[in-house]
């Protein structure tokens, strides 16, 4: 039986990686993946706590998060494709204007 602490530490490491990736990277796709990483680290804590306190509600939350993440991925990727078609670049620093 792996203790709760290991799951939490792993989740914290994954979350921090996600944050660092989000802040440091310039490429939109990479930032997008970093967000997914953060979401999944949260999912991990949910599941871990759910086991720990013997309650299913944490796992239900995970399903919600996954559904939202899927929807977000669909919308986000569509935006990224549209953006690339217009600007021919995916660097966030170059798309800081609303107007072309």
């Amino acid at each position: 039986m792996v203790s709760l602490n290991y799951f939490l530490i792993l989740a914290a490491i994954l979350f921090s990686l996600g944050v660092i990736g989000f802040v440091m990277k310039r490429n939109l796709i990479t930032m997008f993946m970093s967000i997914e990483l953060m979401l999944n680290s949260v999912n991990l804590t949910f599941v871990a706590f759910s086991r720990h306190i013997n309650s299913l509600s944490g796992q239900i939350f995970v399903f919600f998060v996954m559904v939202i993440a899927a929807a977000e991925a669909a919308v986000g990727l569509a935006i990224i494709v549209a953006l690339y078609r217009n600007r021919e670049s995916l660097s966030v620093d170059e798309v800081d204007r609303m107007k072309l």
Partner: protein
Amino acid sequence: MTHLWLIPILPLMGAALNGLLGRRLSKTWVAIIAVGCTGLSCGLAIFEIVTFSDFFPLIERHFTWIQADRLRVGYDLLLDPLSSVMVLVVTVIGLLIHIYSIGYMAHEEGPNHGGYYRFFSYMNLFMFAMLTLVLANNYVLMFVGWEGVGLCSYLLIGFYFRKKSASDAGKKAFITTRIGDFGFSLGVFFIFWVFGTFDFQPIFRQAAAMSVEPMSQLGTLTVITLLLFMGATGKSAQLPLYVWLPDAMEGPTPVSALIHAATMVTAGVYMIARSNILFSRAPFTLLVVAMIGAVTALYAGTIGLVQKDMKRILAYSTISQLGYMFLACGVGAYAMGIFHLMTHAFFKALLFLAAGSVMHAMQGELDIFKMGGLKQKMATTYWTFVIASLAIAGIPGLSGFFSKDEILWNAFNAPQYGRFLWAIGWITAGLTALYMFRIVFVVFHGKFQGAEEAWHHVHESPRVMLVPLIILALGAIVSGYVQVPRFLFGGVESFTRFLAPVLEHPGAHKAEEVASAASRGMEINLTVASVAIALIGILVAFAIYLSKPERAKAIAGRFRLIYSLLYHKYWADEIYSAVILKPIYFISTWGLWKLLDLLIIDGLFVNGTGFVVRSVGSALRHLQSGRARNYAAWVVVGAVLIVAYLAWGR
């Protein structure tokens, strides 16, 4: 079913019609609307009073205007003997003056006929406000009318608003009366505080049960009545707030006749008579009222002696006569105050209208020393003017004799300072005769003093102006016969009896009772004395101004100091300016404008707020770099701070 509300509403309708549509109507239609509405209102008033006089007091409650907790102010109208006298005076004289105005204002030229419709709209609005004032059944509605007439007075004084002096005079009238209105409204608030209502009947019922307050201490009723009287001094041009009335002569002459002689300025007398139960229980206030009335009568009468502007002499005469009315109220003879109000309304309106007729002929000239001999060309105006002058001088047989004599007799019997008050009134009676006949002799007799062309232009006024003059002259003769003193033909006291339900209550002291039967002979003596001084006044005027005109200059030269004191109206305007206006200007300029407004409000509050917001903004705007990763970093920082706070902060 009575329809009292129609009496004030009809003129309001006329005002609205003329005010909104008058520009597009011809002069004829404007006049028809204005005179028609006033005439209907007048006819209705007479009809209602004649029909319902057995049912007085008649109270009509129409709707609740203000309701909050135990405060209720309704649009309630009251028709009782007192208000019916006022309504008759206002509507009858108002109607005559409206008719006169058709002729007087006919020559107004310029865009929109020189404001012809505006004039009649304001006049009708005035009628509405004045009728509201006299018909109101509570102090708040009365105050609405009170302020309404003030507004119309302002609008009509400044009718020729392109003339600086006219618009200044309008403002002066408005602001000066506002000082009095301040006292009046405070008095009304006090009434509510003490009696818990604004309606007349419950107030008077409660007050009737209160005892007469001692002279020496400032009781509740004394404070209330003093405040109410402050309002009356403003509206009715008594010392020390009279200064606006002479300047108000800048308005068209019918306005002077209607507002500044016959009706609005008498509102203060009406208000005191209406509140007589309160005043009768405050002997100190009554003494103040009587003193101010008497002193004002004398003061204004002396100024009237030496003025050269015809309308201004009449204005000072009005102030002086209003002083008589207050003197009457102050000695408890409210009925006589109202009686003099009524007779004065006739002869003073007549004097003004006749003066307007003269002005009309003289193309606006008002200096009486540029006129003379007008009798030859203006016979009707002359005779009506003479009748009015005889009436105001108190010559037996005319209305002024009856009312003035009753006032002097009541003053003589006043519980305090009776002889003194009578003496002042008596001297004033002489002055009145003197300055009135000064006008008569200088303007209508002797040789014409103006230019040749002016003499050719002199003509009698059109019939539409003369008919009101003649009717008013009849009124000036006969209106006194409703109240004939007892020593003449046994006396006819129908006026006192008519007003008795309103003005005579147990506890109100009556001069008649104070005077014993033995003093009946005294009354005759006093009457003879006052007629004698009036005749002396006329003779002096004759001796100075008609038989030897150069005497006037000689006398003025001999008493140069007094002459110039009177000619400059005791320097009242200058003193007011130095003592009140200059300090106010100074405080306003340096204290309120330069210090408070520019430095504190503009500098500290307005610009200070802007400065703080701008500097904070320019410091914070660096956060908004426009780079997504910066924002993300701030989100992280924020999240870390929140977590840190949750973990260790508490």
